[in-house]
């Protein structure tokens, strides 16, 4: 148990030292000034709030996913390539413990970044509107779960494949799992007539997580209340999928020659 947390701590520190973290700080600064920028073009306070939240949450979501793809697909192969894994795995700890620790360290960093950006955006909005919207964190929680799940997916693929391929596969699963039903029905099936593509996507969606569950941007932006039990349900859903991907990764990693 302590080994698991120790690996997570080292991984978190290691990730913080990677230059990608500087991008987070840049994004945070952008989120702080975004409301002022939008305000300059807005036509009334209501439009300002809607546009800022919509645009800001979309940017935060994409940033979280980009980080998850980048870090999740490279964290284990990087340790193997740099051979930092050998002294760690020569200790009396299971490889599943190692994978779990790596996942936790990476997921905490990605989720932390998502919350940091959300907080910066919230502060930016509050500085202009004099109102603090705590609902933004409901959306941030969903994006954190979504990013953590993508980290687990990429980490799982990275045990089988090279980091670039793991990233591409992770992005593929994310795209398929997050494709809205309306897009499949109206764009693929009716507008384009790509029936076999639509059928293929729908078939694949049965085997991958439904990322739409984590997207709470619309209710947050429009002030629609979200039932607290929904957060519990989405957390449980994410947890079970993460567990499954880590389990698959663990089974393969346990027998992998290093």
């Amino acid at each position, binding site marked *: 148990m*302590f*080994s698991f947390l*120790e*690996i997570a701590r*080292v991984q978190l*520190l*290691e990730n913080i*030292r990677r230059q990608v973290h500087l991008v987070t700080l840049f994004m945070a600064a952008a989120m702080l000034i975004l409301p002022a920028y939008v305000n300059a073009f807005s036509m009334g306070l209501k439009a300002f709030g809607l546009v800022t939240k919509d645009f800001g949450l979309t940017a935060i979501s994409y940033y979280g996913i980009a980080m998850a793809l980048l870090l999740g697909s490279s964290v284990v192969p990087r340790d193997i390539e*740099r*051979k*930092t894994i*050998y*002294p*760690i*795995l*020569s*200790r*009396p*700890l*299971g490889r599943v413990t190692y994978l779990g620790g790596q996942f936790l360290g990476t997921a905490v960093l990605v989720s932390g970044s998502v919350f940091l950006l959300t907080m910066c955006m919230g502060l930016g909005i509050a500085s202009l509107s004099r109102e603090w919207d705590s609902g933004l964190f409901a959306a941030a929680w969903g994006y954190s779960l979504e990013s953590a799940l993508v980290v687990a997916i990429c980490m799982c693929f990275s045990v089988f494949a090279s980091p670039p391929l793991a990233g591409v596969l992770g992005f593929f699963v994310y795209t398929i799992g997050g494709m809205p039903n309306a897009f499949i029905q109206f764009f693929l099936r009716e507008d384009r007539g790509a029936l076999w593509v639509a059928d293929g996507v729908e078939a694949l969606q049965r085997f991958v997580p439904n990322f739409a569950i984590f997207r709470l941007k619309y209710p947050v932006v429009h002030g629609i209340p979200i039932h607290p039990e929904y957060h519990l349900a989405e957390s449980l859903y994410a947890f079970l999928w993460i567990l499954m991907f880590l389990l698959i990764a663990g089974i393969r990693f346990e*027998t992998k*020659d*290093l």
Partner: protein
Amino acid sequence: MSGYAIDFQGLTKTFRTLRGPVEALRGLDLQVKPGEIFGYIGVNGAGKSTSIKVLLGLIRATAGAAWVFGEPAGSLAARRKIGYLPEVANYHEFMSAAELLMVHARLAGVPRALQAERCRDALDVVGLTARKHSRISEYSKGMKQRVGVAQALVSDPPLLILDELTSGLDPFAQRDLRDIMTRLKERNITVFFSSHHMSEVEAICDRAAIIHRGTLQACGTIPELTENRERVEMLWEAVHVSEPLSQISSLGEAAVATEGAHDFLQLALSRGYRLKRMNTKRTNLEDVFHSITRRIDEEVGACSLS
């Protein structure tokens, strides 16, 4: 249950590659006794690192078995008894030596009350106490190797596995690490180390093994391996050579066992060679190593040709 620190029994490892199977280990049998410093010698690709990785559970043997103090290699119980320094030791360079050792003490399951003491002790053994708060990225290569030895020691293991400990280090750093190993012997720690430096193995090891092409070729104490033999090295000049001798190289060099030196001298003189220089030399581990590996390579070459 075997009483050996390390026990390899018919260890075989075949890697499946795109070019077909590659046999890294072919029925390796080797035993290391507790408390000895054991040198593990072989060329690159001989199977040294592969067998060490099997001990640590980093790779799985295709056949055969290995034990560490009677525990199956790779098991948690076996790994609790091992301190390991990898061939290429990369650590989290943003940490200081003290921080890295604390991380490894926690990973090794050292009780909380003992962690600080073990770290202090390990740093003291490798002589890094004064620089323990400097970042590892600021260390020289020799200091990084010493940090590696300290992290291997932090769990106070009865067996230390050091893979190519002194590879790529300057003579001073090599000597420092040899001194450290000698100090470890006084603590009754079994040290199993692979090396390319024969003189180093000769200087500090109780026993050594030569591995080549995945099999054990020779094993014993240094006097046993070198057989305490002397040889005579000669330098000849071809003056009026009637029939060349195969033992004399194109440069005129020849080396023969002491007991056959007199007869060889007579023969070479009778064939028209003139002796320029001659001296006796004790056979060392390097000679034995070269002779064994050359013989095996020639045999394999002959087999593949036939």
